[in-house]
């Protein structure tokens, strides 16, 4: 007698499962984690500014955050949701809020604050919404916003690690160009930290893992090739920022270094590639993704001249997270009838132009010497 089993079709399935996508994401983060260890652990150690603990501190920082996230999710599942999920089975998905939180915070963040931040990221960013797939806000950014707010209230925001603080006076104009009265010159924005190459490779002050643009770009291509990323979003996001800041610079007579500097600094590349593309909180339809990226670009540039850069990006992404469902609704209709969304895209383009002209006018005085000069300290 033959044992024949009924099954629901289709009977072949793609091998690219969620677990594969998550693993590829982790793989793409390895160079970034290693670089953060190099810049914030090895370099200070080599120059005698920290001890052995300081050498491996970046890794400890990340592990503490990851561990907190995993434990928080596990206990939430067991105690509140009353699910019998084992720690191991949910491990792959629960690392991400903690991991991304650690990478987007300055290394000087007190460890106790980091732990609270990871807890908040997992609970308020993910679990109270219903866990994997249900959250409407990016968990790591929720935690990030909380931590930065606390740091600001405590008067303790400092992006320079123990080695950088000996060679750079402060990173204020880099982290917060809004404090400048003017657009800024190459001498004030770039030169104190090296050249644009430093920004590309990442040997500039910033959050733990967001400085290395090069490794972020490599990760982008790797993840797009492995079909684990919404590739349109970073492309349009960075492109919009570049174009708007190009016009700002152009209207003020500064060269191409200005928009290049803008997309290489402030952790924009990392945020655009890893945070804005979080699958659960970003749109699923192609045209909605384009509008999402453009809106992010416009908001980011606007915030850049008002508040510190990284925080502007965090707030922009959280705002757009809230609009994802609405954008997807429009995007679904646009698949049948492109005209439905083309007006929106046109409006965005006009808005982008308006923003660039406005900022160019407001910050248009280049020739006034900057009061807060950031000269290299010998």
């Amino acid at each position: 007698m033959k044992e024949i089993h009924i099954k629901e079709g289709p009977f072949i399935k793609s091998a690219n499962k969620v677990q594969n996508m998550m693993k590829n994401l982790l793989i793409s983060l390895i160079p970034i984690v290693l670089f953060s260890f190099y810049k914030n652990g090895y370099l200070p150690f080599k120059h005698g500014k920290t001890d052995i603990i300081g050498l491996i501190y970046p890794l400890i920082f990340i592990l503490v955050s990851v561990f907190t996230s995993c434990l928080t999710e596990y206990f939430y599942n067991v105690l509140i949701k009353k699910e019998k999920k084992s720690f191991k089975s949910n491990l792959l998905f629960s690392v991400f809020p903690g991991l991304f939180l650690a990478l987007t915070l300055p290394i000087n963040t007190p460890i106790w604050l980091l732990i609270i931040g990871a807890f908040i990221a997992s609970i308020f960013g993910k679990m109270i919404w219903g866990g994997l797939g249900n959250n409407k806000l990016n968990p790591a950014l929720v935690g990030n916003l909380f931590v930065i707010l606390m740091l600001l209230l405590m008067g303790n925001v400092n992006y320079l690690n123990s080695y950088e603080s000996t060679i750079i006076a402060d990173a204020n104009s880099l982290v917060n160009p809004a404090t400048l009265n003017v657009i800024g010159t190459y001498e004030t924005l770039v030169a104190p930290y090296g050249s644009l190459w430093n920004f590309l490779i990442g040997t500039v002050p910033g959050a733990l893992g967001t400085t290395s643009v090069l490794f972020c770009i490599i990760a982008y291509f790797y993840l797009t090739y492995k079909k684990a990323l919404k590739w349109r979003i970073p492309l349009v996001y960075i492109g919009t920022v570049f174009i708007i800041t190009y016009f700002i610079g152009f209207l003020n007579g500064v060269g191409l270094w200005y928009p290049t500097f803008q997309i290489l600094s402030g952790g924009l590349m990392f945020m655009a590639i890893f945070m804005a593309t979080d699958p659960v909180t970003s749109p699923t339809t192609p045209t909605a993704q384009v509008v999402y990226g453009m809106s992010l670009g416009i908001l980011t540039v606007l915030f850049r001249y008002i508040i510190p850069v990284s925080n502007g990006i965090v707030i922009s992404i959280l705002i757009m997270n809230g609009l994802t469902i609405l954008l997807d609704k429009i995007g679904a209709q646009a698949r049948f009838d492109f005209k439905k969304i083309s007006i929106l895209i046109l409006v965005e383009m006009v808005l982008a132009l308006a923003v660039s002209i406005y900022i160019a006018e407001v910050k248009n005085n280049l020739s006034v010497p900057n009061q807060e000069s950031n000269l290299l300290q010998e």
Partner: protein
Amino acid sequence: MALHLPKYKKRTIDHALTKYLRPKYIYIPLINAGDTNITNLVQKGDYVYKGSIVARRKNPFKIPLLSSVSGTVIGFEEHLCYNGEIVKCIKIENDFKEATINSSKNDKLNTYSKKEFIEIIKECGIVGMGGSGFPTFAKYDTKKKINTLIIDAVESEPYVTADYAVASNYIEEILETIDAILEINNIEKCYIAVKKSNHELVNIINSHIGTYLKVKIFLVDDSYASGWERMLVSKITKEEYKIHPGEIGVIVNNISTIYAIYEALKYNRGLTERIVTFTGDMLKVPQNIIVKVGTPVRDVIDAIEGYKRNKDITFIAGGPMMGTSLSSDDLMVTPNLNCVLIIKKSKDEESLPCIRCGKCVEVCPAKLSPVLIKENLKSAEKLQKLQVEKCIECGLCSYVCPSNLNMRECVKLAKSKVRG
């Protein structure tokens, strides 16, 4: 996004075409294109000839079902059909004489008038052999001027190679028939749609197509969705139609159906046999076989050395994307059955929550957004706005979902909600 599926076609292409034409009993299921409103025309004890009409579908199509052997009607039994339902069948005992009536030989295929052509392909029981089973004559029986004939030789589903076997073995007859069809129906041009990557078939067609000036090859890309009728018509004629291609003067026929038309026009033979791909990793010798309509699939499998094992079997009528998994191998061959796929039962994989990755949206050939359909299952109004009725149930959304969700079932559920 054009998604390419793995092919799994090599083994059945490399194996020579075989025959199994001596079943002891045949069972003609009283079903056509999913419709069981069929009038039975025989009784127990009747003698039937090979090709004689044993049943006829009720209005409006009235397509006949034919006996594929000569012999005696034993009675009626119920058996499994390709769509998973139990259907009443006429059981006929084969007397192995292959006796026919009304056979003739017609050297020139184009000596029929349009009316005669339609009548003969109707009475020969010719239906869509690519899987639809739709009565072919109904496509030609129209007052609208037809200007393009498209022959579907794409066969984009993995595992299935029945069309390839017909095309590679009978290309001259097929081209001759196409030429005749064009002349009889006053159709100006014909395109044979073939996959770009199917080099063997492209070469076979190209080496015979020279004298047929009205017939051209049309190469389609390698993706799974390229075999969809609507996409084919849109790519070839650059026009869209609402419900069926006849609206814009186009007829699409599967290439195996054309060979059946050849037999009808040349020898006045009804559709009594077809090539079926028997394949899958649980079969000892996957191959294409010529079988008679009504043959128990079990008998064919036994004749080709059978199953590798007797357990953990998933038995599918049709291809891996659009076929149906059946509860047993008690299946009878019907004119629209192109593949029997027997694979190892795979582990039940756990489904994860939807992570809104958007892959289902990207692959859908009908430009639907399955993610949003899933999120709006409660509201029939929203589902209608999402145009769920356009779903062709190709299965690409389920194939690609990383969370192992059966998105196709979800969209099918949405469709039934909208229909009310």
